[in-house]
């Protein structure tokens, strides 16, 4: 299995290296779909230039990276291309290993269930075979490394790639069952861009499941482990934040990074929902709607955790997808991360309702983004509404995609308990509906 992965890695690195050397790199790094004010490489360089001038990079409103990033690139600025390629490689390998481990766990669980004869007899079609599952980790790595979104993001040197690597390592550590490392990487991801905080719940659920601790609020063992994990997470977050403070000896980065993410002052167009909405917002409703939109990202964590408490990895996927749709400065790099998980759920394919439509919309939108941007910004023959319409459509497609997978997952679980071919009372074929 290692050989195909190496091959994929080599191909991915070659593509990136070629693109880095070509004239496209500069074009790509200016694209608003690929870089946001939060993670543009140009702004990292600006931050370093400000440091060189003896000005705090956080005294202005151009640089919004965390101090650790600036510290990292202070040393490796000349090898930035390689750093970003390595980050992509790490993400892919981490996801590969994580999915491999997860599949083993799924298979083991399925075997137990089969042995205990828990599945209805007509569900044999739904049982996953090792042969089907064999290539899934490779597909995940392939989906991540060769996804055009990832490639663009890497070539633009968007620091989103680094955040993805941290999240991938967090997933790997969680699935491997290392609570401490998982907490550290989760803290790092949270530190980089607040939103991964919502991944705390699925990680905790997975680790509990691994330790066979039932999720029961009356059990002290549950509370003990939750507390343990929370302390590890908060402790490492605290250490990282203090470390950042000592690097620049000022707290300026807190408003400049987290205040910037949460209050959305920069309305540069991107593929998200925030920019045009807040450009057109009435001033006295602004604060209210910012709260509503930001809460929206965190809002789904608890109900989803309750609904999917037996399936924390799917919960991780759902959370990452929700973050990348509803976050304040999304880029295509964020989308690439949750799209890498799609091969893991390829057994849900038969239950997806509108995957064809959604894929077509996503593809069409991806092609239309640059076109309408050109018409608005360069040609002047269209206005902002054109680009805005495409972002709306793109987000609707993403929402449909995610909810479709969620639906399919729930439906498969339902079939696994109630049988695949449901019959009505009178014996005729029944249809399933949500009620």
């Amino acid at each position, binding site marked *: 299995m290692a050989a195909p992965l190496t091959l994929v890695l080599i191909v991915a690195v070659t593509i990136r290296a070629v693109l880095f050397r070509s004239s496209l790199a500069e074009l790509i790094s200016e694209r*608003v779909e690929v870089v946001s004010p939060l993670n543009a490489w*140009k702004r990292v*360089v*600006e931050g*370093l*230039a*400000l440091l060189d*001038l003896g*000005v705090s990079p956080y*005294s*202005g*409103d*151009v640089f919004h990276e965390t101090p650790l990033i600036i510290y990292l690139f202070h040393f490796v600025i000349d090898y930035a291309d390689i750093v970003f390629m390595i980050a992509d490689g790490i993400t892919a390998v981490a996801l590969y290993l994580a999915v491999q481990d997860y599949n083993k766990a799924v298979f083991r669980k399925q075997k137990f269930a089969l042995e205990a004869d828990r599945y209805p007899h007509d569900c044999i079609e739904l049982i996953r075979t090792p042969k089907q599952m064999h290539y899934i980790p490779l597909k995940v790595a392939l989906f991540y490394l060769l996804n055009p979104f990832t490639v663009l993001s890497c070539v633009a040197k968007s620091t989103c790639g680094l955040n993805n690597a941290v999240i991938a390592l967090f997933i790997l550590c969680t699935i491997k069952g290392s609570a401490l490392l998982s907490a550290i990487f989760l803290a790092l991801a949270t530190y980089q861009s607040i939103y991964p905080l919502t991944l705390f719940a699925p990680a905790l659920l997975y680790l509990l499941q691994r330790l066979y601790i039932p999720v029961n609020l009356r059990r002290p063992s549950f509370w003990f482990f939750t507390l343990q994990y929370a302390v590890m997470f908060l402790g490492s977050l605290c250490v990282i934040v203090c470390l950042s403070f000592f690097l620049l000896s000022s707290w300026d980065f807190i408003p400049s990074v987290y205040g910037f993410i949460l209050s959305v*002052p*920069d*309305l*540069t*167009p991107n593929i998200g*929902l925030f*920019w*045009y*909405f*807040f*450009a*057109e*917002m*009435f*001033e006295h409703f602004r604060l209210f709607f910012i709260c509503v*939109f930001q809460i*929206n990202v965190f809002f789904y964590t608890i*109900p*989803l955790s309750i*609904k999917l408490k037996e399936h924390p990895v799917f919960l991780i996927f759902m959370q990452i997808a*929700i973050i990348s*749709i*509803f976050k304040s400065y999304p880029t295509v790099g964020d989308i690439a991360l949750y799209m890498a998980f799609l091969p893991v759920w390829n057994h849900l394919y038969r239950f997806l309702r509108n995957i064809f439509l959604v894929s077509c919309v996503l593809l069409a939108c991806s092609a239309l983004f640059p076109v309408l941007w050109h018409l*608005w*910004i*360069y040609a002047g023959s269209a*206005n*902002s*509404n054109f680009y805005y319409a495409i972002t*709306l459509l793109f*987000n*609707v497609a993403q*929402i*449909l995609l995610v*909810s479709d997978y*969620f*639906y399919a997952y*729930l*439906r498969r679980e*339902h079939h696994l308990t*109630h049988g695949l071919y449901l019959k009505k009372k009178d014996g005729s074929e*029944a*249809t*399933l*509906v*949500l*009620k």
Partner: protein
Amino acid sequence: MAAYRYSVVLLAFALLVCDSTRATPKSDEGDTAEKTKSDIADDIAPVEDVHTQKSDAVSQTQAGRTPNPETPESMQKESLRQWEATEINVDTNADVQGDEEAPDRRDAEATDSVPPPPPPKDQFQEELVIRPLQSGDIYASFQFRTRWDTDFFQQGKKVAHYRLFPKSLGQVITKFSLRELHISFTQGYWRTMQWGQPFLSAPPGAELWVWFQDTVTDVDGAWKELTNVLSGIFCASLNFIDSTNTVQPSASFKPLGVGNVTDQRFLRYAVLPREIVCTENLTPWKKLLPCGSKAGLAVLLKSEKLFHSSFHSQSVHIRPVCQDWQCTSTAWELRQTLGVVFDMHTSGQSRREWSLFKMFSRTLTEACPLASSSKVYVDITDNSQGELFDLTPATPTLSQAVVLGDRRTYSVYDLTTPEPFGTLRSLNILLKWKTTEAADMLRPLLHGERYVAGYGLQTGEIHTLIYNNHPYRAFPVLLLEMVPWYLRLYIHTLTVASKSRENKPSYIHYQPSKDRLRPHLLEMLVQLPPNSVTEVTVQFERALLKWTEYTPDPNHGFYVGSSVISALVPSVVAMDTNSTKEHPLFSSFFPCKEESAYFVRVYTEPLLVNLPTPDFSMPYNVICLTCTVVAVGYGSLYNLLTRTFQVEEPSPGLAKRLANVIRWLRGVPPL
């Protein structure tokens, strides 16, 4: 570095102090208002003699250094011409003048044997300089100077009695503890390459810079209040000055008056490039003059003519100056200037012929009775033989001054004497050009240009070109760029190149912007190689603003204020020393020091930059549509979270349901 900055400041200061002593004859410092004109004339006569003698002495001493080659000839030819006190651009000379003045006055008092009048507390001087430009246009510059020997900040003593100094400004000084105030309103752009340097340069729009006393604790609060007060006084939109267009330059704007506090915390500088200057700004400006527009030179200031010109700039400068040469106490100086360039074509004439009446539709009839000196100067440097234009009425008085590094000769009309008015009792200076084509002009040594490069509404690049036209001298300039926050500058893209080679600035002060709070401030010290163009480029990104932050005409674009180039420019006089004109050999080996450089401030064009705009007509639609998308997300997840899968029970048909209702009413079990 610091040493250089200090020297810039020092020299700028020295130059301006010398400049302030220009309106020479300190003849009669008594109550001019109460004396008749003939009295004044009597008083002046002996004093002027002294001055002439002194000026002879000075021109002798100066002849050694930088003689005007034409002086002896013209003196011989036109023996009628009388040389007035030469302005010398050196501190020491000014001091000598003051020294000589004192005993002289004592003599006068002794001979008159009247009790000595109380020392003059305030005085007012007015002057008009007319400079014919080579392009055929004409530049008229008014300067009104009110000096008051008082201290606004004396402990326990409130200044309440105002005579010549305008009370409104005095109260502003006291209330806000100002040290210096410089405000200018300009309509049009000064074309340096065609017109040369103006006497006082100003950027298009409104410019305001203020030094506060170091006793002020809340400088920002005082600044905010001050701009609102000034907005009322000058009837201008200075109240639009807020933190987003205010900066604290570290080196470019040093105090011009006495005092050595140079802590930039007490400095505020703001520009409103979009400000439109018109009559409503001129009227309050004229009201500050002691004579208003009733008498003196100010009668010429009629708005219908002044604003029918290609350049108009009016300003007010307040600063503390030395009361005497020892500088033991300070006086306050209010300098009101107004410069205007009349264009041959806009004034609708084909011949190059200018007169006071043509320019201002008024002629001069008297000096302001409150003025201690009132003069009209006409620049005749290029016309010493009368080869370019005819000047009528001719005046015998001549004056020389080193202005902006160049030795200029002026015909002087002293309005406090009856001679210039002649028999008609009115003075209408007429300037008739003999040639019709524009003559060559010495190119200004320092010149700046600016433009925005790039296309599209995403990014762009600001190019600032600084020309050094000096053939062999390099000199440093201070460049100040103030860019609003919505053009996000990327300082790492800053390049400075001259002669297609990198020219690393020796000093950079950069303050990045904060969104909706403060602008970018970039100041740097660049050495300009001789005879070169230095190009400063920096890239920026255009921000998308909230729809309420756009101006009512968003597609017109947004103005970016002029960048400011401050420099000590090697003077033309010094440049001449290398030429092969007739100089005594002993004089021309070393370039004369005190005239080797002069301070000049050059403003570039303001920029007009387009920003991407949202659609202003559809906030409701956007709010509805985006909320719909969020609701789609919320709804679909809510659906899946709260509902469970169930086998669908086909709902009975309408007929069956109706039948069941009837059966229920009848009390029969349903079907």
